């Protein structure tokens, strides 16, 4: 869909990158939408060999911990509960099956496109307990927060959320603190940034000396981000640049931030692959506990033993690329996913499966 002008800039930026790359660099992208866009445009295949582009923990479904998956599957088997979920979560495998399996066995699982739609489901079914699987980063969390304030104002008491919301900057910090990861710079997520702005990434440059570029999702915008990152790396200059200025204000979306502040408080959260990350979750504030499905239904989480050879956790840290997983494209396919990185359309394994399964570089 790119305009001719954009295609022209894209080619010129590719050439520029080839000319200017002086040494091996490892760039990480931390947004599932970038993962998909990069794979779809075949960007990895045209990069200079020195530029390695890895995907990080940018897919909210993928980073959901096994413990959490089992907990919401447990909830879904309750007689009185209807689960309202984004379609992406439907086939995520837990210890015993998925939401799709539960639905096939007569459980009530309904796909929704927004938190508002989930709330509407609760309004229309006063005799059911509607539990919304609230998954997503800062981009998605304000919509959940909004639905909750409406539920509170209208006293819709058969609505609650199973809260899986997470925040991106603390995960970046965890990745940077982990020496195994060794990333030189980041392509920062455009739409998360539309909410949080530029400031929350400052530590990436100031504490860890790595550059980051906030980028849009067109191939030309991704290529521009790469040129900017390599320019900064060549100059040994660590700072955060915003190349998505028409959508991302330096201060973010103040209304959304105020709403998040009103509804949530930071709390530790467990990420697949990364483990527990301090203050990376968004817990409901106490006055909203009645809308927290965990509190409402007394959910308990049990540790989950590793079930398969799935290496989704390593994929999410950028340590391996999907073809290095022994199950990739053999036992694990989008039809028979063995891990969440293959389930979600924007999971790195799914992106590799669809766009470059035949590559030798893996």
């Amino acid at each position, binding site marked *: 869909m790119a305009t001719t*002008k954009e295609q022209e*800039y894209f080619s*010129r*930026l590719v050439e*520029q*990158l080839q*000319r*200017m790359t002086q040494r091996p660099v490892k760039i990480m992208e931390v*947004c*599932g*939408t970038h993962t998909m866009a990069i794979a779809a445009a075949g960007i990895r295949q045209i990069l200079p060999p020195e530029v390695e582009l890895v995907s990080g923990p*940018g*897919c*909210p*479904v993928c980073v959901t911990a096994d413990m959490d998956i089992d907990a919401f599957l447990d909830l879904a088997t309750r007689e009185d509960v209807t689960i309202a979920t*984004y379609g*992406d979560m439907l086939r995520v495998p837990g210890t015993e099956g998925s939401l799709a399996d539960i639905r096939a066995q007569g459980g009530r699982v309904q796909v929704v*496109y*927004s*938190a*508002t*739609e989930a709330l509407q489901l609760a309004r229309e079914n006063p005799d059911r307990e509607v539990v919304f699987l609230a*998954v*997503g*980063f800062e*981009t*998605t969390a*304000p*919509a959940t927060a*909004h639905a909750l304030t409406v539920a509170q104002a209208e006293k819709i008491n058969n609505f609650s959320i199973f809260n899986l919301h997470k925040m991106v900057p603390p995960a970046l910090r965890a990745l940077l603190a982990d020496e195994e990861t060794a990333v030189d710079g980041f392509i920062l*997520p*455009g*739409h*998360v940034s*539309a*909410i949080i702005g530029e400031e929350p990434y400052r530590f990436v440059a100031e504490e860890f000396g790595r550059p980051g570029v906030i980028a849009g999702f067109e191939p*030309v915008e991704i290529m*521009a981000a790469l*040129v*900017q990152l*390599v*320019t900064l790396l*060549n*100059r040994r200059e660590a700072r955060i640049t915003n*190349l998505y*200025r*028409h*959508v*991302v*204000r330096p201060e973010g*979306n103040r*209304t*959304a931030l105020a*709403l998040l502040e009103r509804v949530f408080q930071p709390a530790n959260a467990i990420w697949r692959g990364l483990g527990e990350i301090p203050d990376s979750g968004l817990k409901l504030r106490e006055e909203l506990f009645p809308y927290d499905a965990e509190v409402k239904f007394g959910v308990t989480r049990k540790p989950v033993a590793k079930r398969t050879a799935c290496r989704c956790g390593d994929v999410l840290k950028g340590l391996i690329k999907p073809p290095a997983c022994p199950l990739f494209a053999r036992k694990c396919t989008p039809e028979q996913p063995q891990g969440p990185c293959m389930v*979600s359309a*924007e999971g790195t394994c799914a992106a590799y499966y669809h766009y470059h399964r035949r590559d030798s570089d893996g």
Partner: protein
Amino acid sequence: MCLAVPGEIIKIYPDGYQADVNIMGNVKRVSIFLTPEAKVGDRVMVHAGQAISVIEREEAEAIEKLWEELLRHGND
């Protein structure tokens, strides 16, 4: 999950919180609760039924200048 698509606001409902947005020829009703500054004629980014940002026309037009700059700087 963080996918957002651009569209143009063609109508704002009297409650002020909802708008009809033309997204590539399809008109969708979306919440503009998070973008109270949005006006008819504005372009917004829509994510999961919500407008999350009003697209700034001037910045959008300036983007080619940004790319030109990048093409120049790399030559250092």
